[in-house]
């Protein structure tokens, strides 16, 4: 099993200057903050189901940027329709990464649909994503990172991670502050 925080740190290590990251609420927000709390991260603390849609709007506004949405399986499941919306628009500069612990981690670790029957990579492919990849082992992360950074979008990666709570790394919670910081960095 892959450890989520190490995996996210590896994906974001030496990130290119044009990379803009949006995080889905909960553990992905903590994982991304732990990897480096930088101005080009937009942390969601709510708006569950909206991360991929937000990434699409940003990718369309910033065609020179590489937009990476890092979210969890529960957040992605709530916005399943947004995969169809992204597929329909074919944004070349949008990558979605699902950190999949097959559980609703924030609320007591209840099993999610991805631990039973739902295959998010297959859903994305069926919605018109150009490439998808699911990593089960550590040595598969290098290839997945390559796709996240440079494959023509839209692409979706899933990293299957061990469940269990890690220490929370809490970035800024004030949405006005997060938005202002991000917009200054994107200008």
């Amino acid at each position: 099993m892959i450890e989520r925080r190490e995996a996210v740190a590896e994906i974001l290590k030496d990130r290119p200057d044009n990379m803009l990251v949006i995080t889905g609420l909960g553990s992905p927000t903590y994982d991304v903050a732990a990897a480096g709390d930088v101005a080009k991260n937009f942390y969601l603390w709510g708006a569950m189901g909206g991360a991929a849609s937000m990434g699409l709007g940003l990718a369309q506004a910033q065609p020179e940027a590489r937009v990476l949405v890092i979210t969890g399986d529960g957040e992605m499941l709530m916005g399943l329709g947004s995969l169809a919306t992204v597929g329909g628009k074919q944004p070349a500069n949008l990558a979605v990464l699902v950190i999949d612990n097959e559980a609703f981690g924030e609320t007591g670790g209840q099993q999610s649909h991805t631990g039973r029957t739902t295959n998010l990579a297959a859903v994305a492919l069926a919605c018109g994503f150009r490439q998808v990849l699911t990593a089960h082992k550590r040595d598969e992360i290098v290839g997945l990172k390559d796709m996240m950074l440079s494959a023509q979008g839209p692409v979706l990666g899933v990293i299957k991670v061990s469940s269990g709570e890690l220490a929370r790394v809490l970035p800024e919670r004030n949405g006005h502050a997060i938005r202002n910081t991000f917009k200054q960095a994107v200008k």
Partner: protein
Amino acid sequence: MGAGIFSFSSGDWREGIFAAMKREAVAQMAYVPDAGHASLIKVCHADADIDCTVCTTEEEGVALLAGAELGGDRGVMLMQSSGVGNCVNMFSLLKSCGFPFVTIVTMRGEWAEFNPWQVPMGQATEETFRRSGFIVYRADTGEDAAAMTESAIRLAYDSNCAVAVLLSQRLIGAKDF
């Protein structure tokens, strides 16, 4: 005025909405289709400078236009009143972060409505917006619709507000089956 391969029919008051969107440099338009918006949607699609995104559900458009604003694009969301209820939790994104947001909403369930299923959300639309922190305009004429669209975009993007323009069912014409 029209753009590309499609123009408004003469007398279509939606032309004024489109003109206001162009004057205010709207770069992205998100929508869930509605018959009352059909000509406006077609003209937006035909405009090379407006990036149009059809959503599977209305809350996607709220998040999408917030993302667009982060990247410097102005946006407008088109939906019908039944979609407003789908957005309620996503509206917290606007309020929590102070995002500007403009939506133009075709009203159902308020004027000679044929379909009883449209009435509950139609009657709750204005209050839902107000309780979610929106400034709400209601247009009963085509001139209102154009002027309110222009004002809504300026108010939203100059003063960081969420603004809804409701196009009354009396203006759109009650739907018949």
